């Protein structure tokens, strides 16, 4: 490492690596230099003039956001000339800024407000009438109030550099300057809302949150987004048991500040009017509301009866319920009902990858690796659509570390903007494309491979063999669809594998086999919608469904038990990279129960002894019984991500690549759940073509 540069800031001796900006060096020393336009991680702008500091021997005040540290530099960040300059800057920024703080969404957490409070720019020499422009709506998500804008360019940079979309620009000049969307009067973009969150003032507001509440009237609950498998932390703002906002401004979690439209806005399924709030039972051919006691009693009675006569159960678990729920469900099936007929919607061949990598260490990548590794190969996946956080990390890796990214995909993807090489192949021929990159890939010092659902079965082994032949360190990410798709596999929602990939003695029926079995007595579906893809052959099967909505599967049910959503329960989920994170209940919907509680009550009703079914005790069982899940408790308890490592040995099962099918969700769809988010559907119905790479 190069020698550190020593400088003095406010009389304090500070050391920083050469090239560090004064504003960053100060921050690391605990001295805050205010800035609107400067934003860590994005290009420098030097537009706002708030970060001016006094540097000895320099005749004029310097912008600390573009000034690298130098040996012996003496900086003063709050001297009289500096304070005077900042006050003038604020006075200038306020010339056209409306004083509508009492109704502005940003009031209370506005950086401009904070600075005016700090430097007290109470008086203005400007007597001209403020220039006013009416507010504009650019999309169902984004609203822009030009007079509030201080032209810091943050939104423009987060959109073009962070997201790779570039949907925002700045038009006109001088006092008439304003932010403009990509398509004249409207936006065609990812609708991620990053521009709204990064706005230091209330110029950009969201269609979800605007005029809903004051920031200080919410409680803030950090939990994990329940849509795709990337496992972004979203901090939900909850007011009167209603979720009104999702963001992650505190940069906690593996995603830092990043969220896509799903994590930031699609929480609105939680109070969708069609949400089930009472158990339903089929009486006289129609689903009718009944009490919890009656519904549980009917299910328990049926389960006990079928179990007693050795009847056939089919159990379908969820890719969105928690690890605890999935673990308990397979325990219920195997120990309680004596069946291995349990499966879930498989969206990636995790099992074969775990088998192919058996016994290795350091072969499974984390989300952080997407940002740190020197080279990455994306095979058969459109990351920007299906795995937006991983796409964001790779893009940031390229921006900050010049990462070399290779893509082998069937069509154009957003990574093409910066990838060193892109290969287009037909589905099924991806490995030929990968092989064609061998000369380049073998020159890389290390490689991260991300592969989608088209690489499955033997292809996974071939891919690993190819990577082995490169003789460089390689890490893998097997892409899966949903928030706990990975956890569902790890917890053993499979007919041939128990928790931790332990093979079972008598493998049960797979999901298509259950659906095709005409003699199925009971179909128990927990948070899944198999009837959207399959038809149920057994006409007389007793169908029990734990669901939030009356999905295709729930409509066919004999008993529907209203389930709590992921935002209403505690537990853990495991993301696409095998990182286990904690869910924290943010709100509550009257009448619903978390799936773990429903299953626990069913076990109690059936007088089964499946152990204590509190979240903590089931999690403890997971930690001790599931291979790879012996993760440190403090990491999970404090809301961080703990990497699981289930690569302990071979997995002797017959691979079933035919059962693996990704839903290929886009940014605006997410299986059955996505349909119940008004924000997601409103964006889909929005006129204009949505952004494609």
């Amino acid at each position: 490492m190069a020698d550190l540069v020593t400088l003095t800031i406010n009389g304090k001796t500070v050391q920083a690596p050469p090239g560090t900006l004064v504003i960053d060096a100060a921050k690391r020393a605990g001295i805050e230099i205010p800035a609107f336009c400067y934003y860590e991680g994005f290009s420098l702008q030097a537009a706002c003039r708030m970060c001016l500091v006094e540097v000895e021997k320099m005749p004029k005040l310097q912008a600390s956001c573009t000034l690298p540290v130098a040996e012996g530099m003496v900086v003063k960040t709050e001297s009289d000339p500096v304070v005077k300059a900042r006050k003038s800057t604020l006075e200038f920024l306020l010339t056209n800024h409306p004083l509508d703080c009492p109704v502005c969404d940003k009031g209370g957490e506005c950086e401009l407000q904070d600075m005016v409070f700090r430097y007290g720019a109470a008086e203005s020499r400007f007597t001209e009438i403020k220039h006013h422009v009416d507010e504009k709506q650019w999309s169902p998500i984004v609203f822009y109030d030009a007079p509030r804008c201080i032209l810091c360019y943050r939104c423009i940079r987060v959109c073009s550099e962070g997201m790779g979309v570039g949907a925002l620009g700045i038009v006109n000049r001088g006092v008439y300057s304003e932010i403009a969307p990509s398509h004249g009067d409207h936006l065609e973009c990812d609708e991620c809302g990053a521009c709204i969150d990064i706005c230091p003032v209330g110029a950009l507001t969201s269609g979800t949150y605007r005029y809903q509440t004051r920031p200080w009237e919410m409680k803030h609950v950090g939990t994990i987004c329940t849509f795709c498998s990337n496992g972004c932390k979203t901090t939900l703002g909850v007011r009167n048991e209603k979720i009104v906002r999702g963001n992650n401004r505190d940069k906690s979690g593996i995603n830092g500040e990043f969220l896509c439209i799903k994590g930031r806005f699609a929480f609105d399924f939680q109070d969708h009017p069609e949400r089930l709030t009472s158990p339903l039972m089929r009486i006289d051919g129609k689903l009718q509301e009944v009490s919890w006691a009656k519904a549980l009693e009917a299910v328990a009675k049926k389960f006990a009866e079928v179990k007693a006569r050795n009847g056939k159960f089919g159990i379908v678990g969820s890719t969105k319920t928690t690890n605890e729920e999935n673990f308990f469900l397979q325990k219920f099936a195997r120990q309680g009902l004596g069946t291995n007929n349990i499966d879930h919607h498989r969206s990636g061949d995790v099992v074969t990858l775990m088998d192919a990598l058996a016994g290795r260490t350091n072969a499974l990548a984390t989300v952080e690796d997407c940002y740190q590794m020197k080279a990455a190969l994306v095979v058969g996946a459109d990351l920007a659509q299906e795995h937006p956080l991983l796409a964001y990390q790779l893009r940031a890796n390229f921006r900050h570390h010049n990462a070399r990214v290779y893509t082998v995909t069937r069509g154009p993807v957003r990574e093409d903007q910066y990838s060193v090489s892109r290969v287009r192949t037909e589905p099924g021929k991806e490995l030929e494309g990968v092989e064609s990159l061998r000369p380049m890939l073998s020159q890389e010092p290390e490689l991260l491979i991300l592969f989608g659902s088209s690489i499955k079965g033997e292809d996974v082994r071939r891919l690993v063999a190819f990577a082995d032949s490169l003789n460089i360190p390689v890490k893998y990410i097997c892409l899966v669809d949903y928030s706990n798709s990975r956890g569902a596999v790890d917890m053993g929602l499979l007919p041939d594998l128990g928790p931790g990939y332990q093979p079972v003695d008598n493998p049960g029926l797979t999901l298509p086999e259950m659906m095709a079995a005409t003699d199925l007595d009971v179909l128990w579906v927990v948070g899944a919608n198999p009837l959207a893809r399959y038809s149920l052959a057994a006409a007389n099967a007793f169908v029990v469904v734990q669901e939030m909505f009356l999905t295709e599967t729930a409509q066919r049910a004999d008993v529907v038990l209203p389930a709590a959503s992921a935002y209403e329960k505690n537990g853990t989920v495991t993301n696409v990279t095998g990182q286990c994170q904690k869910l924290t209940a943010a709100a509550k919907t009257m009448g619903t129960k978390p799936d773990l509680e429903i299953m626990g009550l069913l076990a109690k009703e059936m007088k089964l002894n499946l152990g204590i079914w509190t979240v903590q005790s089931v999690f403890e069982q997971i930690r001790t019984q599931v291979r790879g899940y012996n993760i440190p408790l403090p990491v999970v308890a404090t809301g961080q991500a703990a990497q699981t490592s289930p690569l302990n040995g071979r997995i002797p099962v017959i691979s079933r690549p035919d059962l693996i099918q990704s839903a290929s969700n886009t940014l605006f769809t997410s299986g059955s759940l996505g349909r119940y988010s008004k924000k997601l559907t409103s964006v889909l119905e929005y006129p204009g073509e949505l952004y494609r790479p």
Partner: protein
Amino acid sequence: MTFSPELEKKLAKLIASYPPGKEKSALVPMLMFTQDEVGCITPELVQEVAKRLNIPPVQVDEVVSYYSMLHRKPMGKYHIQICTNISCLLWDADKLFEHACQKLGLGHKQVSADGQFSLEEVECIGACSWAPAIQVNYDFHHHVTPEKFDQIIDSLKKVQ
């Protein structure tokens, strides 16, 4: 969108004059050259330029809306640009502009009914040493008095 062969040749030379990867530096001259041929900056032209320079269209809009010499609507055959910045102002450029308005019967950014003349009050054109200065299309006229202005306009009318 295609341009005349001459212009295409000019644009190819222009783009090639910047280092690889920095082609978008050609944006301003490219807009000016194409504006001369097309007549103004149309939405199609914005898309075309964006495509050729591989930048988002909104970045072209940023530049078009910033520079007063780039027009969204066609200007007259003779586009009269009068500088009223400080050096010219000291030499009564404001009065010259008022005179021009009366002479042409036009206001700022207006075009005559026959499409021959248009008038625009512009920022500094870099001719401070010869203030007050005006520009007719790409031609400069120095030390312009109201009388000299009338002569310029009359000679242009004769050319028609």
